[in-house]
């Protein structure tokens, strides 16, 4: 818009010149991106030879391929900026049709039923390895992402120590199943640990959130980052309580035993993945429904109001600190709940599973799927985690169609996680399955209306 305005006095030739200039700059940007891609997908470095990795990455066919990718991306971006209007216009009618169809409850219900059926039959189609992935990498992380979505998506806060609550849940499980050096007053099945773990995580969330949430929203990010680090330090150093870096072993799996007057029926979830998958599926669907109801409840509407304009919300009688604290505590307790499932499925835990990096991984799942979109969290968890696991499993094996190896090293996982966060924020902040409300808020905030997050300090707080 600014370009065409600036060019108007000069006539068509100047416009063309300016356009060329702009495209040239964009091309240079994409070529720079290509070089970065070459370095990212290049070989691993060697200690003592600081230039080894870079010089071997920027060489021969590898560099050319990456530059070609850059040029193709440039072409696509040019095409998109020219053809965006016509693509949108062309898609307008099918989109409208889709929307009217979607607004009929029967269609929506049918869609969800088909998805549920797919989810039920999915593990039957795969082998043992992917069944394990479905439980440990996708199912549990989908639960975690759903909880974090309450904090990041619904309340508009940033929690970077989310895994700490997951650790609290897992260690609570270890405690009540008597696998830690400290002994509990009674030993119970992981099923019965769930309320304790949820309470413990919620309490930790309230203790951490209460002083911080009175202040600017961004202080929460750094406090939770510190908290995540502290929990790991505590778990490593409190040898006599947490068994240090060795962690807890032999946490029993879920089991149900009905009393004898009900038939004495007994079921043990055991070590295989399939029973856990269905348990997780049940929990995930329940939580999805609960959170969906929450989203449309009084509480959910309060969160929307705080996100969109905190001052106005406060003027309408919504206490922002209370609702932010509520979101934070709900997120924390979901994380604690997932911790129980994790501890019981894996049967051993140690501090290395609960690093700050894991918190960032969960954040990526939420951002990729779409902030504020419950369905998006599950999709994000499924797509991102599947991709990382696929890379890890097929590392070094050629890709079927192009018969070349995937140039992605599993050790660099967090590099891609970081890059994905930056790219999503720059190009698609609303995620791949956006929440309609959240997408509109973001675009409104970009036009200077409202905040789309809860980063401002509440009125009357100690910090301006």
């Amino acid at each position: 818009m600014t370009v065409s305005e600036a060019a108007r006095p000069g006539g068509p030739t100047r416009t063309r010149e300016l356009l060329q200039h702009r495209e040239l700059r964009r091309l240079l940007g994409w070529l720079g991106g290509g070089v970065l891609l070459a370095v990212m997908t290049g070989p691993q470095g060697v200690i003592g030879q600081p230039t080894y990795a870079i010089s071997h990455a920027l060489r021969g066919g590898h560099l050319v391929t990456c530059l070609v990718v850059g040029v193709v991306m440039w072409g696509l971006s040019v095409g998109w900026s020219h053809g965006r209007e016509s693509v949108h216009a062309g898609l307008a009618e099918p989109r409208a049709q889709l929307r009217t169809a979607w607004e009929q409850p029967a269609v929506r219900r049918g869609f969800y039923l088909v998805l549920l059926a797919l989810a039920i039959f999915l593990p039957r189609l795969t082998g043992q390895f992917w069944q394990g992935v479905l439980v440990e990498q996708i199912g549990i992380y989908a639960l975690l992402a759903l909880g974090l979505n309450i904090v990041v998506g619904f309340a508009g806060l940033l929690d970077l120590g989310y895994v700490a609550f997951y650790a609290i849940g897992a260690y609570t499980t270890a405690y009540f199943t008597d696998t830690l050096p400290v002994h509990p007053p009674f030993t119970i099945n992981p099923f019965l640990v769930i309320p304790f773990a949820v309470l413990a995580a919620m309490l930790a969330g309230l203790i951490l959130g209460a002083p911080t949430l009175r202040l600017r929203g961004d202080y929460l990010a750094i406090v939770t980052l510190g908290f995540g680090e502290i929990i790991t330090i505590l778990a490593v150093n409190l040898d006599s309580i947490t068994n240090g870096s060795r962690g807890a072993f032999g946490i029993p799996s879920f089991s149900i035993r009905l009393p004898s007057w009900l038939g004495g029926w007994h079921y043990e979830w055991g070590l295989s993945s399939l029973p856990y998958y269905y348990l997780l599926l049940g929990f995930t669907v329940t939580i999805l429904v609960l959170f969906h109801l929450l989203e449309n409840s009084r509480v959910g509407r309060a969160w929307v109001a705080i996100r969109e304009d905190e001052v106005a919300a406060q003027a309408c009688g919504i206490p922002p600190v209370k609702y932010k604290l509520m979101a934070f505590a709900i997120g924390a307790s979901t994380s604690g709940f997932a911790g129980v499932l994790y501890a019981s499925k894996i049967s051993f835990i140690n501090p290395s599973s609960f690093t700050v990096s894991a918190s960032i991984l969960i954040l990526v799942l939420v951002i990729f799927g779409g902030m504020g979109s419950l369905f998006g969290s599950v999709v994000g968890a499924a797509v991102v985690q599947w991709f990382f696991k696929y890379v890890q499993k097929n590392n070094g094996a050629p890709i079927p169609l192009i018969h070349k190896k995937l140039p992605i090293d599993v050790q660099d996982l967090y590099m891609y996680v970081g890059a994905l966060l930056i790219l999503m924020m720059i190009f698609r902040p609303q995620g791949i399955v956006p929440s309609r409300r959240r997408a509109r808020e973001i675009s409104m905030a970009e036009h200077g209306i409202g905040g789309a997050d809860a980063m401002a300090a509440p009125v009357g707080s100690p910090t301006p």
Partner: protein
Amino acid sequence: MCFTHNFWSLTIDGLNNGFLYALIALGYTLVYGVLQLINFAHSEVFMSGGFAGLFLTQWWVGSGTPGGAESIALVVCGTAVGAVTGGTVAFLLERVAYRPLRRRNAPRLAFLITAIGASFFLFSLAGKLFGRDAQGIPTLYGNGKLFSVFGGDVHLYDVIVAGSACAMLLVLDRLVARTKLGQGIRAVAQDAETASLMGVNIDRIISQTFVIGGLLGGAAGFLFGIANNVGYTMGFVPGLKAFTAAVLGGIGNIRGAMLGGIALGLVENWGVTCVRNSWRDVIAFAILVLILMFRPTGLLGERLGRSA
């Protein structure tokens, strides 16, 4: 038992850490002043300075043992190269990651998420390119004892850190108080929109603020690397503590960041007389939460450009 054992030598170590925290904290506080953004990737700017200094000194020293004038040149050049690298990384970071968001007027949540993403991207990239094991900077000088204060030994390293940090802090303080650039930084911190109406080029000021923070952070990275090791995760904990120091002094307040850094270094080192050394990081974090609870504006208040 507390505070009695080795009090003075711990004080000297504390001052030493404190000066480094102050240098890093300035990067956080300056950027927070102009953008209201916690620049999580600042810890990676610090790390980049450490790596640059490491490579320079490795290449220069080789297998010899430097002494005399060469030692001085090594320390000066290492700090300078660290600072320049830090400044460059900070500049690129602002250009590539934050500017597109600023152009679009993106919500602050998006900035924070980008910042943490950039932090993870940069340290993982460094780990990939330069190896994942920590490396020591070669011996640059004989770290002899110079004199002692009440029985606490002062080594050459302590003097180098204190001297260079004080010099940089003084220059920065004058720069912000006296020069046109400093005036611009204060104006943008106070009210970016009005500043731009008054003819301040906001983009340039923000860029320069990032570079200044990067210079200090990069230099701190090298100075830190001399005594500790250089590795791709070296930035995380010092970064967290430096942010704590910035909040302790009052975020956005430049002298506050200096004071906060030194105070945090001292308290942390005195604190380890009462608890085990592995609890050191917990002390810093407890301080952060306590300040946020009882005096969220910090010791000196949030001031950069703000009235009152």
